[in-house]
């Protein structure tokens, strides 16, 4: 069943405007009307959040719009995921990404933007926060059966911590089990290439990179 325009349009607008209350109410109304939760995700939420990401990339939207759209999506997702479980359908997560700012670095705005964009595109994101030790990355990767591990480093002096984290995965024989990627102000493509890990200069690129790493052809 396709989503009627009378429901799809205001719901889409609620995500674009980051209106958490409207997203909450309209999602519940859509489910009460018997609409397919996966259809709502695929035809309303993903396109809306993709548009928010596009506007952010163009510099027309900023962090507040991105975060509020992410919050609206999170509220809606709780209802939709519950409905998916009840209906017995399979979850449509593209993969699990463990993200964190490396040990010694407390800057996490960039990492938070990447997390929001990845969630918007259907990834399960395990956000470990800032100042994350190498072993915490390893533990989270194993516990959450992650597909991708993303390391963020803003300061030049914290770049070695990213290197040490990658080394630990190798030392423990886990390097081939996960795809690793790096980003942040101190990281360059050349450096990432030397370490043999993925790199993206921005959040939109990180989404495309994650899609490639989990075997999906990027859009």
């Amino acid at each position, binding site marked *: 069943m396709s989503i009627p325009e009378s429901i799809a349009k205001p719901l889409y607008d609620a995500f674009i405007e980051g209106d958490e209350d409207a997203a909450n109410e309209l999602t519940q109304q859509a489910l009460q009307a018997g609409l397919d939760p996966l259809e709502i995700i695929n035809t309303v939420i993903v396109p809306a959040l993709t548009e928010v990401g596009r506007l952010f990339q163009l510099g027309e939207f*900023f962090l507040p719009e991105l975060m509020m759209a992410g919050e609206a999506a999170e509220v809606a997702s709780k209802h939709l995921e519950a409905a998916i479980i009840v209906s017995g359908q399979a979850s449509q997560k593209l993969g699990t990404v463990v993200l964190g700012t490396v040990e010694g*670095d407390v800057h996490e*705005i960039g990492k938070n933007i990447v997390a929001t964009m990845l969630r918007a595109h259907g990834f399960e994101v395990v956000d470990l926060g800032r100042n994350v030790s190498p072993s915490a990355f390893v533990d989270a990767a194993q516990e959450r059966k992650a597909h991708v591990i993303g390391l963020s480093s803003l300061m*030049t*002096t914290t*770049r070695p911590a990213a290197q040490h984290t990658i080394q630990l995965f190798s030392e423990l024989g886990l390097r081939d089990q996960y795809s690793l990627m790096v980003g942040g102000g101190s990281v360059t493509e050349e450096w990432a290439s030397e370490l043999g890990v993925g790199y993206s200069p921005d959040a939109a690129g990180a989404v495309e990179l994650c899609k490639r790493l989990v075997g999906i052809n990027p859009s």
Partner: protein
Amino acid sequence: MQSNWLVEIMKRAQSGPYIKEKEFELALIKRIRKLVKEYGIKYDANTLVPADDGMADRVFQAGLDLFVEFGAYCQSTERQILFSRDEVLDILAMAPSSVTLGTGKDAVVMRHRGVEDPTPATMHSGPTGTPASEKYHPQILLSCAQEPLVDCLGAGSVATYLGADIIPGTPLELLGARRDASVAREAVRMAGRPGMHINDVAVSLTCAGKMAACDPDAGLRPSDGILVSQMVELKTDFDQLSRVAHLYNIGGITVDLMTPLLGGLGGRAEGTAVVSVADHLLGVVLYDVDYHMFSLTHLNYVNNTDPMGIWTQAMVGQALSRNTPIILLNDIYVLSGPGTTELLYECAAGAMVGTVCGFNMQGAGTTGGFNRDHTTGLEARFIAETSRASLGFSREEASELIPEIMKGYIHTLSNPNRGRPFPEVYDVETVQPTAEWLDMTYSVKEELSKLGINFQYAPRPISS
């Protein structure tokens, strides 16, 4: 400020309202949006330096409301450190309006500057925000310290110690911090200005690292400064508060470093201006600082010379200059690098808006901090000269001139010209700029002169 204030702050940091950081951020975003509407604050791309006293005062009031409601978020305890409006205003009234930096004949008095103030700005320089290599760090610092119009030096940041990567919180951070402090001390001595104020050693990311930089003989002295940082936006932790305690212990100069993100939690220019005012108030009330380093940074470009960045600096400077006695320092952060005209035009725009709107000068942070050793003393000279040439301009005049200046770089914002590293634009033996780099500055000054910006030091004829 009462001497036991930190005891009270620690009590509040442990007993204030508990809130998860993300919830704090979302609440902040929503409140800033409302305050921008309530106070009728509007960005106008056609008036980058508004001469609107009413709006400047409203930006201040909105920032004050925001700080009183949200206080500082302590990441160590996940609690808000809150202050009453009366407390904020009382402490603000007692904040210093001038401070002596450095010692002996090299000491300077940095003052609160008014809007359109004819008093020259105090000039800080050094590779702050742009990483330097061990090899060229000494010459880069000397190139800044030897500039006659430069009053204070920032020691900058070197990422290695004897070739080994410096990791925060390790012995190498402490060794690197002491090494950088001694290199800065030696630079000011070689420049013949041994008492010059050194405003920080940036390699240290921890309080222990900052403390390691302090040494009366070979490092930072009480007449020098240490940065106490805020995490964006309105956030602190016990490590930062410990720096305040250390500075109390040694009687050192406390510098408030804030890096509000344009496009970050404050959103567009209007909201970023409001949260930037609140950030300054945090520095006054929580850190009891001597002066404030305002390092506005665009979320996407990583600079503050784009149109919204210029407007935000204009409004924050005017709001604080008109409503507080505090000492403002504008950190000019640019995308371009040495050996390019774009860098000079970016510096000129930043120097003019800051000078007219109540700031002292700091700069330049070049290449958005991306390119190592892409920083020299010549851009500091250029900022100081442009700042002096901007004295006497009204806000209206600055608002007309800056868009003309911006034509020299605005087309490169998305694809900046990172220029060349220090050894390619300076003779590393004599520590003098190459003729090519020097001539570029004369050429740009000549162009700026045509706009009506009269430099105190006439441009030398361009060499043939």
